């Protein structure tokens, strides 16, 4: 049985790490694989822009939504993306507070994942509005009609939660990037790059005062970000639970959604870390120890999610409400049952393979299971949104939902945009938080 490597390989040191990481971002020419990867995702980003423009022109009628399923792909994908984003904050904030050494080298990737995941999520609620040009009505601004938004609605809570989450994530990410941008400025050789990184670094030079305030503030912000991300995902759960809709009206939803956020977040980080550590030759700093920790966390969160699935069934039968039971039977045996069972398979059953160390240390199998989790989480969101809505209490209102090509194009477009964003980060920003790595690396070359 292969042993698990330490958190950095022996012989690693700060000068080598700084040279390597800054070298990656300061390369004159991008890697060939980078161009191969960026071409299709830039195309998909164009598809996203195209489908959004057509949506603005033609209206939400181009999507598959109708009565009774009025929440379709837009809400499914919104919840799916925001869960992926939240996982990054868990790693960067929660595991900062626990002082986990393995966090340092994957923190930047996790936070960048948060930024682009939240960006993909953030556009959906606006697209989903029938009249997106009135989205600012959600904001409590002074208006001549003397109107206020409805503060008692979870949908409005969601607007504030997402606004806070995206703004705070950007500030947290940027603050944590300042020392590394300063390193980039001092390492850059061309004038353009010196000016660009110099402006971005804002004049961070590592003075005693800058460091002193930096460390106090960063710790405080991490302590704020951790409960924030829980609140954001709870509010997303309340979007559903707040309505008296069959299948949604459950107090379990907020924690259930947070479990899902953990699961999809760890899966996405794994999917980014496994290829990047090879392509960028970072095996020295992102070791099998990182993969091992992340897979164990994924396994744990899959058990949480599995518990939520069991409780869902239990509370349905224990509650004994006719409409709830009909809805639940429809979920596990009905038209969309395949999607429910795919959810169970991908989110709960397959991750159980991570009990075995040989599986955890096999990058290919880990990637496949992680992709399965991403798909499974999407299926879970589909089940929650569509299955609950297609069997309302009145049988005369039963209906089916099928996505259209525009639903799929918009969704694939956001996937492309997400990967595009990550590739830009990989190209221009240090992929490892260098100043945090200095805490665990040898200061000099041996």
């Amino acid at each position, binding site marked *: 049985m292969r042993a698990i490597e330490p958190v950095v390989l022996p012989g690693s040191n700060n000068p080598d790490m700084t040279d390597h990481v800054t070298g990656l971002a300061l390369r004159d020419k991008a890697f060939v694989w980078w161009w191969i990867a960026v071409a299709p995702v830039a195309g998909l980003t164009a598809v996203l822009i195209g489908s959004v423009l057509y949506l603005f022109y033609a209206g939400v009628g181009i999507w598959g939504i109708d009565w009774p399923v009025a929440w379709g792909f837009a809400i499914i994908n919104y919840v799916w993306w925001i869960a992926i984003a939240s996982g990054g904050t868990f790693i960067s904030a929660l595991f900062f507070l626990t002082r986990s050494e393995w966090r340092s080298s994957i923190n930047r990737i996790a936070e960048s994942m948060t930024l682009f995941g939240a960006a993909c999520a953030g556009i959906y609620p606006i697209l989903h509005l029938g009249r997106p040009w009135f989205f600012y009505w959600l904001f409590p601004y002074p208006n001549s009609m003397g109107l206020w938004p409805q503060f008692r609605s979870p949908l409005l809570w969601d607007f504030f939660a997402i606004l806070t989450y995206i703004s705070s994530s950007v500030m947290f990410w940027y603050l944590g990037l300042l020392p590394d941008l300063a390193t980039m400025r001092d390492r850059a050789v061309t004038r353009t790059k010196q000016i660009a990184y110099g402006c971005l670094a804002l004049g961070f030079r*590592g003075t005693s005062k800058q460091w002193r305030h930096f460390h106090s503030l960063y710790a405080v912000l991490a302590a704020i970000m951790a409960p924030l991300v829980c609140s954001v995902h709870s509010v997303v759960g309340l979007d559903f639970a707040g309505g008296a809709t069959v299948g949604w009206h459950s107090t379990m939803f907020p924690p259930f959604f947070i479990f899902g956020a953990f699961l999809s977040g760890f899966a996405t980080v794994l999917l980014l870390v496994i290829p990047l550590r090879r392509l960028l030759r970072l095996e020295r700093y992102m070791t099998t120890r990182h993969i091992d920790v992340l897979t164990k966390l994924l396994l744990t969160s899959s058990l949480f999610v599995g518990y939520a699935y069991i409780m869902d069934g239990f509370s349905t039968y224990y509650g004994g409400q006719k409409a709830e039971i009909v809805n639940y039977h429809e979920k596990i045996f009905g038209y969309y049952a395949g999607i429910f069972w795919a959810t169970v398979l991908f989110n709960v059953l397959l991750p159980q393979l991570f009990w075995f160390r040989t599986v955890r240390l096999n990058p290919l199998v880990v990637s496949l299971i992680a992709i399965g989790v991403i798909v499974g989480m999407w299926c879970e969101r589909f089940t929650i949104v569509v299955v609950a809505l297609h069997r309302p209490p009145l049988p005369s209102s039963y209906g089916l939902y099928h996505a259209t090509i525009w639903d799929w194009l918009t969704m694939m477009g956001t996937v492309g945009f997400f990967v595009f964003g990550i590739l830009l980060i990989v190209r221009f920003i240090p992929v490892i938080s260098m100043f945090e790595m200095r805490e665990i690396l040898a200061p000099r070359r041996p």
Partner: protein
Amino acid sequence: MKSLVASFETESNLSEALPRLRDLGEIETYTPKALENEYPPSILPLVVLVAGFLGFGVGFGMQAYADAVGYPVDIGGRPEFSWPAFVPIAFEIGVLSAVATGFLGYLLVNRLPHLHDPVDEALLMRGATGDRWCVAIRTETPERAQDLLRALSAEQVEELPA
């Protein structure tokens, strides 16, 4: 007044040198990570805390005013001042004000953006964000400083053009 920049190879060399350099004049350290000595506590956590509570209070007050006074709407006979429903938005506004105040406060206390500083002219400063431990000294007696720095095992010393 002359300015000197000296680089040290290790953190401990710099830390040991610092107490003796302070007699020479104004000094400032430039280091790739925080020096491990006792800093006075930062004001920012307190500012962030106050901003967070203020944001929470203002957010809560705004909702209470809107729903109870400014624009009361009867929803299923629930009380107009239904305060538990105001907590999530008040919390989010509190968090946003805390984080934004912390971020802007950081820039303010450090007087950032501060894109150019005379000390940037020293070539040694390029290493200060990588693997060298630098100190800048403004002194009336540059010769004495040079000698002292060499005695204190400084790796290189650079004099800035006046």
